[in-house]
């Protein structure tokens, strides 16, 4: 119970310290900002140790036998090589695990993008032009793609298609911006709600 109260007071103090930036930059804000970065980094290190290195590498190396045990040396060595960046002369060795990571990322990403994004999205755009929504969607996709077709200078009637594409892009930006405003307000509501309910207990 007492731990919860202390936690709430610390959280409230840090919230006010961060919000104090709205008045002007000050040492309290800087302290809270640095504390957040430090705690996040520390938390990340603990999580990687507790949920990844220890159970997946160290514990398995102790428990496993034969090939399953020794194969674990491969990721362990690759991981250690990543740290070679800190040592100038052997820094180039870090390219090996980086190449491995980039290779896996590209391999997984390319297939996922085609199978999971490009093809289903194209398929979902092939719609019968029987409703207003479908017409807007198809026209929007075509004119937006045309806008990004830079190999030819569009003149005459084609110019209007490009302008229509810009309108669709602007509407999309507007929707994203509107959502972003809503999200930021939600964060402010969350913090004020915390201060009024959990800390001051007046609601």
């Amino acid at each position, binding site marked *: 119970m007492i731990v919860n109260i202390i936690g709430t007071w610390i959280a409230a103090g840090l919230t006010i310290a961060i919000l104090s930036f*709205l*008045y002007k930059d000050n040492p309290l804000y800087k302290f809270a900002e640095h504390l957040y970065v430090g705690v*996040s980094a520390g*938390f*990340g290190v603990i*999580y*990687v140790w507790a*949920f*990844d290195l220890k*159970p*997946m590498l160290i514990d398995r190396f102790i428990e496993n036998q034969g090939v399953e045990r020794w194969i674990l040396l491969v990721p362990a060595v690759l991981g250690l090589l990543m740290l070679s960046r800190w040592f100038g002369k052997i820094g180039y060795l870090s390219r090996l695990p980086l190449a491995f990571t980039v290779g*896996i*990322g590209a391999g*997984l*990403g390319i297939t*996922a*993008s085609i*199978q*999971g*994004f490009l093809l*289903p*999205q194209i*398929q*979902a755009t092939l719609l019968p032009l029987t409703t207003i929504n479908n017409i807007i*969607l198809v026209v929007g996709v075509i004119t937006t793609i045309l806008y990004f077709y830079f190999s030819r200078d569009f003149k005459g009637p084609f110019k209007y298609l490009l302008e229509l594409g810009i309108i669709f892009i602007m509407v*999309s930006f507007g*929707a*994203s911006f509107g*959502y*972003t*405003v*809503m*999200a*930021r*307000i*939600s*964060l*402010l*509501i*969350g*913090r*004020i*709600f915390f201060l*009024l309910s959990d800390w001051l207990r*007046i*609601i």
Partner: protein
Amino acid sequence: MNFWQRLGALDRRIIYTVVGLAVALPLLLKIIMPIRVSEPVLNAYKTIDELPAGSVVMISIDYDAASEPELQPMLIAVLRHCFKKDLKVILTGHWALGLPLGEMALNKVAAEYNKKYGVDYVNLGYRPGYSALMVGIGREIRDFFATDYRGVPLDSFPFMRTVHNYNQIAVLVGFEAGATGDAWVQFAGARFGQKIILGATGVVAPDLYPYLQARQICGLISGLQGAAEYETLVKSIGTATLGMPTQSILHGLIILFIIIGNISYFITRRRKK
């Protein structure tokens, strides 16, 4: 300096104070507004609601404290729905800083419905490298999560003995503050046909609508509004429902500021000419 010029040069701190009051007052007065449920949220609700009791729902915590006000009420509402329907919940996460938030919500809601750890829900914890993990779960979940977050073997939990890959997971619900939602759709959804519901922050939600239109996801819960809609559907008033009147008032205020700002700008510009 005339009225409009003065308005244009208004100290931003006065605007912050007005915004602060506009947030605090509706909360203090506990105003509640009717909430209209949108189709994407209703579809998300229906997808979970139609599952038979005992079905397994995997929940992925892909956010951290910075998105807590939007996504935590969403998570609590979905957990309430799952436990009310006697569904089994598997919690995991790809954002290290978010997992404690998931655990807090899980423990709180489980206690409300007398659900027991290991019998009705488990927490798998966190593993880095989400792309490989999402593909790997399609083969065997134990390759990545041999134990739960406390190191207890998965097979010691009764309902987990039959869960090996996506085939045994009825619905995956991802709460997203970044790009992990795209990965769930592209890896788990496209490759393994996993049914997916996404709950996302307002910033991320517009990028997820194409998946909804293409029926790659079953439902989308967007921002605080989406959370409030889900709370309405599960009939439990939470912080999202309480925050919506403030949200509406503040949106009105921002629109008013934009209009006044523009009038001030154009009048000042004309006078300068």
